[in-house]
């Protein structure tokens, strides 16, 4: 763990708009940040990259006043500051755009931007000045937004703009963006980067928190790499490459792309026919979806999240009933009148790695061995007798943990005590144990460290080569492109197009994800 000295050697601190010295923070026994030194040059885009749990968010929360450091100093423009709350941060010119937007959907853009700085008990004066300010900012940074539209009517990219405008209107000179592209299409991400470029050109300093190597390479000037609560390196972006960054993040050599032999598809395992369903409010969220998956192939489903992938997976795994159409799994026809549950689906050799492991895949307050039988608790996995056989379950869990290299190797540890990658491995180990014939996979590597991504991808390919049919839903285009034999692009619950994996490229997929099918675009 060689600590690499800062990029600019010597230089006086005055040229740094923001400097952190020996920032440490621990929660109980967990040291989230350890002696963090960070220097940010004014008017640059500075990337902070690291795996989940590396301490990026904690560091940013300290900077934004949401947490307080146990020790260490913060300097802005060379002078020491104490940031005790987000109000302090804002007054010092630090703005933050959170991963999950902090907007009130039923308010207009104007009302959202004004929130917290209404300018007196009568609104009208504040409104006029805010409208003017928004116009000015919009022109300077080329991101105009109609101030009178409701936020709920804006798409995700525009909402993000509103967040940025809100921060800028508050006078932010330093803008922190936490995983800003997680919810964007590739095109929207490109637009965001254009905006960041403009911000930089106008003297705003941007701190970009991400785990995506491509983004760091594309837009940042400097990058700091975090691992295990420490900064393990600073680099000038032009002097580094994704491979080096990945190795610094993980601490060992990694394969960024898993090798994939040609698929040998066999018989059809899943046949989906005009599948449709409605949300509780009566909106159509799946619309006439028809596709099939063969044994021995991976069908990737690409799309911006919230375009029908979730209900599709819920229907296929038995958690939800289709309202229209039907699907045939391994020869069994299921429509709205069929009695199914996730339990019967599992009995039919269908595995399901859910999108959200914290919500669905795991019971965080259960111990690892109890999670290892979730959904299989009525099978011989819990022992042969009428009562649960704890020893049997512990042995089963310990074997799976060996097989999947889940650390720490303690089946009695609460699921919440494992890192994201190891939690995901618990889910994967459980769902693959019975050798499913059809596997439904959602976001298998969300919030998973690079090392575990490599492992999980290998597992999926291996399973495919053993003749399993796999449906892979992911918002990470790289993942879809890296693993899928065919790719179905979804938009607003409909199929936009299906393309072969080796013919697909991010640009076309991005357009399709936005709802423009290849034929129509030119």
């Amino acid at each position: 763990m060689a600590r690499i000295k800062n990029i600019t050697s010597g230089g006086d601190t005055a040229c740094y708009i923001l400097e952190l010295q020996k920032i440490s923070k621990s929660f109980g026994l967990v040291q989230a940040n350890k002696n963090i030194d960070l220097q940010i040059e004014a008017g640059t885009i500075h990337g902070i990259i690291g795996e989940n749990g590396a301490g990026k968010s904690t560091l940013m929360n300290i900077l934004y006043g949401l947490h307080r450091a146990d020790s260490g100093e913060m300097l802005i423009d060379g002078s020491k500051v104490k940031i005790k709350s987000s109000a302090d941060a804002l007054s010092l010119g630090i703005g933050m755009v959170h991963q999950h937007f902090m907007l009130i959907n039923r308010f207009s853009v104007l009302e959202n931007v004004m929130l917290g700085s209404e300018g007196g008990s009568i609104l009208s004066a504040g409104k006029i000045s805010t409208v003017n300010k928004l116009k000015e900012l919009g022109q300077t940074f080329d991101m105009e937004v109609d101030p009178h539209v409701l936020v709920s009517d804006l798409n995700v990219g525009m909402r993000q703009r509103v967040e940025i405008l809100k921060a800028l209107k508050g006078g932010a000179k330093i803008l922190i963006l936490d995983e800003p592209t997680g919810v964007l299409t590739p095109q929207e991400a490109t637009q965001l980067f254009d905006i960041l470029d403009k911000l930089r050109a106008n003297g705003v300093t941007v701190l970009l928190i991400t785990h995506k190597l491509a983004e760091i390479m594309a837009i940042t000037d400097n990058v700091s790499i975090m691992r295990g609560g420490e900064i393990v390196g600073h680099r000038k972006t032009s002097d580094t490459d994704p491979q080096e960054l990945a190795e610094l993040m993980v601490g060992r050599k990694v394969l960024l792309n898993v090798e994939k032999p040609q698929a040998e598809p066999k018989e059809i395992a899943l046949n989906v026919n005009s599948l449709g369903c409605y949300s509780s409010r009566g909106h159509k969220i799946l619309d006439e979806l028809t596709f099939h998956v063969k044994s021995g192939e991976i069908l990737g489903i690409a799309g911006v999240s919230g375009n029908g992938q979730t209900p599709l997976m819920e229907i296929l795994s038995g958690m939800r009933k289709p309202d229209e159409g039907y699907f045939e799994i391994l020869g069994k026809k299921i429509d709205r009148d069929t009695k199914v549950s996730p339990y019967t689906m599992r009995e039919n050799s269908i595995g399901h790695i859910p999108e959200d492991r914290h919500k669905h895949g795991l019971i965080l307050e259960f111990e690892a061995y109890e999670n290892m039988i979730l959904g299989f608790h009525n099978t011989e996995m819990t022992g042969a007798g009428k009562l649960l056989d704890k020893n049997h379950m512990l042995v089963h869990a310990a074997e799976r943990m060996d097989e999947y290299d889940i650390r720490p190797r303690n089946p009695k540890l609460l699921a919440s005590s494992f890192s994201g990658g190891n939690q995901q491995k618990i889910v994967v180990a459980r769902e693959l144990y019975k050798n499913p014939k059809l596997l439904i996979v959602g976001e298998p590597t969300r919030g998973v460290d690079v090392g575990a991504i490599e492992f999980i991808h290998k597992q999926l390919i291996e399973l495919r080569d053993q003749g399993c049919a796999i449906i892979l839903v992911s918002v990470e285009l790289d993942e879809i492109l890296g693993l899928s034999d065919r790719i179905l692009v979804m938009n607003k619950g409909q199929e936009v197009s299906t393309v072969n994996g080796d013919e697909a490229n991010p640009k076309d997929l991005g357009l399709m994800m936005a709802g423009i099918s290849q034929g129509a675009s030119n």
Partner: protein
Amino acid sequence: MSVIKPLPRWADLILLPFINLCTAFFVCGIVVYIIGENPWDALMVMLKGAFIYPGSLGYTLYYTTNFIFTGLAVATAFHAKLFNIGGEGQAYVGSLGVLLAAALFAQYLPSLLVIILCICCSALFGAAWAIIPGYLQAKRGSHIVITTIMFNFLASSLMVWLLSGILMEKGQQSPQSNLLPESIRLPKVQDAFEFLGVNISSSPMNLSFIVALIALLLFWILIWKTRLGYEIRAVGKNQDAATYAGINVSRIIIITMTISGAFAGLLAVNEVMGVQNRVILNYTAGYGFTGIAVALMGRNHPIGIFFASLLFGVLFQGGTELDFEFQSITRDMVLLIQGLIILFSGALAYMYNPTVSKIFSKIEKRSKKNG
């Protein structure tokens, strides 16, 4: 990464409740001191009153029995993250089961069989009273807290109506049922000892204490050893994950409430079959509500529930003694002390958690440095 490291199990189960209890007693001591009595003397009187005086231990364990039943009722529901406030009503209605089984079978069947039937029926009636709120929660989304509270009132009105109507003892003015036939009254502890040739002072403690211990064991098996218990805990900890696992959440909610109500209904075994030998108005006397504190303090674990029940038994019995011995300590004072203990052990149960956690992490760091 923002997780506070959980305490070791023993600290959570023993150390924290102990510190809470000490705090509660300390505050009580201050109150006792303010009204001009010696706190130490008061404590001694209370302990002697609960354990030493003739028959006092029997009284303490009699109260303990009640709290075990109602504590288990609350704890069962807690495991599915349901807040069953209705133990009071379920226990009240449970007594109807005893009366019914006694009326139907006492004349025809051997008494041991009738006793077993009575016990089952008390659980059954308690369960029936809890099924409805369970069903409403599971299928209609009515909040269990609201419905169980309402059902306490319903139970209360129903029992007043019955006890002053068709169930009222003939030729009497007070709202209470006929006495149970002697053959199905549960033997008292002094009777059992007498049978063995040992004389002990009389107390209301009876065979149902054994029933309570069996209930504790059954509870432990149910929650930690059966697949149903696994499903109950899964629903309690994460409903979405339970659904994903194929567990029918509504079904589990209804079943859990049924079992919870059954435990509460067993209160009738102690009170009706063991002590009063009849159903009297308001015989549940708040045991159902105290069960909430018992379950909280006992961390929903059978061993914890046993000791919490014992503690509340001591408080009830020793409290009566306090009231008796000290002029200035009245019945209300005793209630205040109980209230303080519920406050510190129940409502503020985790007040010391961060502090203790910090101390633990310091100790661990130090031992790491040294080691």
